């Protein structure tokens, strides 16, 4: 049996006036995955997340959550409890304390008695805010508020977590904390869908990505496949001997192309389309050919480079 599908959409379309914000999106996200949504501003990421969260109704198309159809017009409370949604701009009740705020949402999601109290303790631990539980929300920093928002979103232990730009405006340390919290959630088996412009974070977190452009889902694949398909690897080698010898030793390998040599420094850079074993084979053959190497490493295009390389434009 293959991995279960947490979210599936079928011809998902959303119009605003006559403009199509999403065009027939067919999406599948595996259970337990961290799925990154990438796309330029206005590509439809927020719309897709809002549709998945049932905050909007699709114009056409269907959404399935763990195999059950979502209907935003007549929402099923059982399915609503399986979703946690943290929008880009999430307002808080500034007059409440952290504990009261979480208590309110826990009750909204039907958590009762000890289960509710334990859940509040757990999520406070998860987002590293137990020491602030009696503080008024208005006294929290932006990063803490962001983490509190995440705590509120997961208080009812959803199976699917939808995060829209969750780290925007956070400093590096707060982002790191946030990433750690997301990893912890994945450890609990929660499927996470994140939309973010901070692609380095997504590259670090995600197991799969979807690329949206003009409302079309142009890519929907695992991160490894994406790198393989669109990313480029380079082999960087340095020799204390002859660069020409090194160049000659590389010629038999079909996975190595576009060799660029710099005789002054003794360095060679080449495109490499193989995997780790093939890279090891190259190294072994060079050593056997007695090439005096002082450097041999493989580099990979970042997610950001791949994204830019695809040539996305801002919709008008």
């Amino acid at each position, binding site marked *: 049996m293959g991995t279960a599908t947490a979210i599936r959409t079928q011809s998902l379309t959303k119009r605003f006036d006559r403009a199509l914000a999403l065009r027939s999106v067919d999406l599948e996200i595996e259970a337990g995955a961290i799925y990154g949504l990438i796309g330029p501003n206005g590509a439809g990421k927020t719309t897709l997340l809002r549709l998945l969260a049932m905050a909007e*109704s699709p114009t056409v198309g269907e959404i399935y959550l763990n195999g059950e159809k979502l209907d935003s017009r007549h929402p099923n*409370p059982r399915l609503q409890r399986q979703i946690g949604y943290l929008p880009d701009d999430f307002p808080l009740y500034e007059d409440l304390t952290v504990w009261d705020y979480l*208590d309110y949402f826990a009750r909204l999601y*039907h958590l009762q008695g000890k289960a509710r109290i334990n859940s509040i303790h757990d999520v406070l631990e998860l987002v590293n805010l137990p020491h602030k539980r009696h503080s008024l929300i208005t006294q929290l920093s932006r990063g803490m508020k962001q983490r509190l928002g995440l705590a509120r979103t997961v208080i009812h232990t959803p199976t699917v977590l939808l995060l829209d730009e969750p780290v925007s405006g956070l400093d590096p340390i707060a982002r790191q904390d946030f990433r750690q919290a997301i990893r912890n959630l994945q450890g609990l088996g929660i499927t996470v869908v994140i939309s973010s412009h901070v692609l380095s974070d997504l590259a670090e977190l995600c197991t799969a990505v979807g690329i949206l452009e003009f409302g079309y889902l142009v890519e929907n694949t695992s991160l490894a496949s994406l790198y393989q398909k669109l990313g480029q690897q380079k082999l960087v080698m340095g020799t204390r001997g002859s660069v020409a010898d090194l160049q000659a030793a590389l010629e038999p390998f079909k996975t190595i192309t576009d060799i660029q040599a710099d005789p002054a420094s003794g360095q060679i850079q080449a495109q490499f389309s193989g995997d780790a074993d093939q890279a090891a084979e190259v190294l072994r053959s060079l050593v056997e050919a007695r090439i005096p190497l002082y450097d041999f490493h493989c580099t990979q295009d970042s997610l950001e480079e791949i994204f830019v390389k695809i040539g996305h434009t801002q919709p008008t």
Partner: protein
Amino acid sequence: MLGFQLLQTLGAQGVDRLGDWNPQLLREWKGRLKRFPVLAAIGISLLVQGVLMLSSVSMLPGPVVSKDLVVSTYPQFRWDGIAALDSALQPEVTLPDGQTLTLTSSILVERLDQQSPIGGDLAAGEQALQQLQIGDRLIAINGEPVIFNTDDERQQLSFHVNQRITNQLSPISVDSGQGFRDSVELTLLRPDQELFMVSLPRITLTNHHNRYCLYGDSYQGCDVTPDGQFYQIDWRKWYGDGFWAITVAMVFSLMGIGVFLLGSNLAEEKRRGTLNFIRLSPRSAANILAGKLLGVPVCLYLAIALALPLHGFLGLGAGYSIGHGLGLYGAIASQTVVFYLAALLVSLCITHPMLLGLQPWLMAAGVTLFQWIVLVALELPWGLPHIDASGAWLWSVFFSPLVSLAYFAPLTDAAYYEKVVDNLALGLFRINFAEYTVLTVLHAMGWTYLLGQASVRRFRQATRPLLPRALSYGLTLGVMAVLLGLTETDANAYYLDEHLTAIVCLFLVYFTLLTLSLVCDRQTLQDWARFRHTRPKHIRMALWKDLLWGEESSPLLAIALNLLMATILFVGWFFWNYGDRMDTPEALQVFALIVAMAVGSLFFATLASQVVLLLPRKKNGFWFGATSSISAVAFPCLTALLVIAQAEFYPHITTLLGMESELGLFTLTVGLMAMVTTGLGFCHYRQLAISGRSELQHLLKGAS
């Protein structure tokens, strides 16, 4: 958190359970039951109660003081007009100058009053009273014949006679107790007797008047206690007035402040965007809205609860039963829920940022004004318990709990008003308080259901029509049944104009609300036009069914059907009652044209608003409202202008289209309206057709 801590101390488990049942309620309580708001609510409640009670106490008559006292006789007289004397009875009297005169007329004793004196020889007065009877004729006062020469004296005869009597008595001082032995001698004539003399003792009376005094039969001044130091007080009336004052304050606070608080809270949630989170929770909309309704005005409820003991005490003091009190609370509570739900619904519908700020003020002012109008229309401030409304207007009284007060007139007043408080006139009906309470609560329940449905729908999805179309048809039948039924209770040809005005005005209000409840937003209409055919066959309805029952299609056909049903009912009712007036073809023509003009204008306004809705422009709400209003009055105004212009500039034209000129002009404008409506209908169809095109079709046809 004073109040909330108190609550928690009293029953932590109960609070916890309450929070599990309705987290929104607990959240609102936690946010509001804090030290300052709670103390402010208690303080204001006690202050208002104190001010009302002090004001009531200040209105009591107080002790008897000398400035309230007047000189009079015991008994007191009321005199009738001058009556001619039978020639056999005409006495001869001697004037002070020695002349003798035969009296041909005299003044009749009409009434003898026995107001309790503060001081004086009451025993002598009682003796005089034995000698007197109604119908005696006054001949002379202290031997001086009673003759009136001027018209003024004749017109205010009783006053002038009594003045002459008291003028015979020397001024007295009550404090010194001097002069009480003085008396005045009246010479009277009784038809079967000779002239006889009666000696009336001089006494002092109070002429003080106060709402809370007990009066004897004379009503000339307050009754005093036996010791003469204080006035006798009608405590039931005083308690009753206090009860009224607190009820009115309670109703105005609940309506004005409560509606403001709810509107303001919803506006704040919308501004912050927190409402969206609550929307996405698995709690039902009804649960959350109930939490808002019970939680947001909690400090107001607290203030009112603090007034209940005094209110109950005053009510019991006034002689009202506990059942009456509970009925009143039931009526107030049920009507308050209706207004609160309406406030929630309006708040949920308003999205414009500028209106969000104004909305609480406008709603509170509107509701308070409505309650004030009802208060004035019922003439309750003047203590007259009746409902001054008839026909369809009668419906409006069920929207105000103040109507209940008509049953709470002070019981002493009730006796004066022939016990109308037992059975209040409601059109042709006479309903007692129990019937009134049941009717009011049922009426409020109906509105609660409708407004609750609409609020829940709007809460879940901001673009959803407020009411399902299937419900609208039943609602129209119900509304017309109420309007025509209430008019039927007072169906009188003499009041036909008034009745028709009431029906038309109230139907116009209903139709406007109905249209607003059924229309979809532009996006929904565009999506329906574009993607209707892509829906799976098993859920796709036939077009006519979709137009009549669906929620995302153009609402025009549904609105037309509602109008048609209302028109049929109205025409049927009219012919049933006033059919005999339609005895000529011209009368029928006029009636048909008026109905066509009224109904056509309403449909035309709806159609025009739908056309404007689909135009790609900003401020759609403004244009929607402006177009609807202008379109609704356009053709009736045009007709009026044409008729005036014809009379002014072409008076010689007497016939048009083979009819009287006014009728001809009417027919022309109705025809014009039909043509424009058809054209606009085609335009709307085109709009929907263009909206239904795919991107490819748009590209190919060059339309956008």
